[in-house]
C-alpha cells in the first residue's frame, strides 16, 4: 500500500500549487519554493499543515525543512558554507540547478532556498520508512 515516489510527488505538487497559488504546471519537482515559486515564511507553516493533514504525519518544527543537508553535519557544511561534496550532490540530483543565484557559494542561510518539491518528497520517503518499516515502493 506504500505510495510510489511518483505518487508522493504528484500529491506534493498539488499541495504546493494550492498553497502558493500557482498552476500545477509551474510547480516542477526541482523548482525552488522560495526563488521560483515565491514562498515566504508563513507559507512553510501553511505547507507543513497541509502535508500533515493530508498524510497524517506530525513533523517537528524543523525536520520537514531541513532539506537534503543537515547544517550540523561536517560532510555537508563547513565554515558556514556547503562543502564540495554537498555541491556535487546538488549537481547530481538537480541537473538544472540555478547556480547563477549562488555565485559566492551556498551559505547556511541560503539552505531554505534549496527546498523543492523533491526535498519534501525525500523527507516523506524517509518518514514513511521510519513509521512503516518499509521503504516506499
Amino acid at each position, binding site marked *: 500500500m506504500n505510495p510510489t515516489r511518483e505518487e508522493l510527488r504528484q500529491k506534493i505538487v498539488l499541495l504546493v500549487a494550492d*498553497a502558493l*497559488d500557482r498552476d500545477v504546471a509551474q510547480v516542477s519537482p526541482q523548482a525552488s519554493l522560495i526563488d521560483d515559486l*515565491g514562498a515566504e515564511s*508563513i507559507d512553510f*507553516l*501553511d505547507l507543513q*499543515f497541509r502535508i500533515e*493533514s493530508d498524510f497524517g504525519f506530525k513533523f517537528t518544527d524543523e525536520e520537514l525543512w531541513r532539506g537534503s543537508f543537515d547544517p550540523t553535519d561536517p560532510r555537508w557544511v563547513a565554515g558556514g558554507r556547503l562543502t564540495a561534496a554537498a555541491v556535487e550532490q546538488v549537481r547530481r540530483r538537480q541537473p538544472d540547478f540555478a547556480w547563477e543565484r549562488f555565485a559566492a557559494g551556498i551559505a547556511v542561510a541560503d539552505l531554505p532556498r534549496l527546498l523543492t518539491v523533491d526535498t519534501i518528497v525525500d523527507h516523506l520517503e524517509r518518514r514513511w520508512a521510519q513509521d512503516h518499516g518499509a521503504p516506499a515502493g
Partner: protein
Amino acid sequence: MPASPLIAPDRRRVVVTGVGLVTTLGGSCEEIRSRLAAGEVAASRPVTGAPGLRLATIAGFEARPHFRQPKALKLTDRKTQLAVAAAALAVADAGLTEEVSRDDWAIVLGCSASDLQCAELARALGPLDPAAPERAVDDLPFFAERLLGGLNPLWLLINLPNMVGAHVGIQLASHGPNHTLTGDWIAGTQALGEAWLAIAGGEREVALAGGADAPLDPFDLGALATRHTTAGGAPFLVAEGAAVWVLEEREHARQRGARTLGEIRGYASTAAIGGDLSGALQRAARGALGGADEPWDEHPATTRAEIHRRLGHALAASGPIDGALLLAEWAAVEGAESAAAGLLLAVGTLGQCAALALAGPGRP
C-alpha cells in the same frame, strides 16, 4: 476644566473623487439605485436559531481578480476580500491610474469585529466523543493537543481585524499610514471622518477610506441575534458589503482633472453618556457641522431605513454605502453640480454615534 472655545483649524477642503461598492444589490451606485427603484430586495436566508434575523450575501462575488498578489487570498476572510475589491473599484472609479503614485496614500478602513472562524475552530476540535463533547472545552491539555494539531496555523492572521486595512495596503503597494478602525457599526463612518481629518489637516493628499463587514460566522450571527429578537415585526436583514471612497485634497483633485462626486465638510464621533442617545446624536451632528453657518438638511432617515430593509444592513460598511448612495441621489436629482448638503449619521450598539457633513460638488 474651564471652558475654552475650540480652535478653528486651518482646514483644507476634501473632495470625494471615487467610490467602490460591493453590495448585495450591485457594485455601483447606478446599479444599486436602479435596483432599489425597481423594488428589488436582496436575496436572503433565515439564520439558524435566530428568528429575528435574515442574512443577505453577495452572490457570485469573485475576490481573485482584485488581488494583485492572489497568494494573499488564503490569508483573508470575506470582509477583507470585499474591502480589497471595493478599494480596487474605488481607485479605478477615481481614475487613479498606475501613473499616479500611491506610495503615500492614507488607508483608513472600518469593520465591526474580528473573524473567529468558528467552523475552523470546531473542525480542529473534532472528532469528539458524543457522550462527552465538553472534554474538548474543559480538559485544557486535550484542547491544546487538538488545536495545535488541527487548526490552520494561519488562523490568527485571518482573524485579526487590522488585516482589512493591511491587505488593501499590500495589494495597492501603498506605504502611507494604514489603519483599521474597530468601532462596531460606526467604524466605516469614523474611518471616512478620520481620513478627512488627515487630509484637511495637511498630512496627506489622498486617502482611501470606508468600511467592510461580512458577519457570516455563526458567532457573529449569534451575537447579532441577541439584539434582534422578533417582536412580530419583519426580521432584521443583516448583509455583507463594503464601500471605499477616494478622498483627495481639492487642489490635488483639480490639478489632475478629477471628477468630483462631493465633499466631506466635517466629522465628529462620540459616545452616549448615561444612555443618552439623543444627546450623543446632537453632539455628533454639532461637531460635524463645526462652524457651518448654512442650513443643513438632515440625511433623510426614511430613505436609509428603506435601503437597510432591502439592501440589508452591512454594519460598519453601512455608513459609507449609504453616504455614497446619498451623493449619487443628489447628482441624479440636481445634476453633477448639485449644491445639496446633508448629514450622514451612524449609531452603534451602545448608542455611540458618528456624523459626517456631506455636500454636493456645487456647494460653494
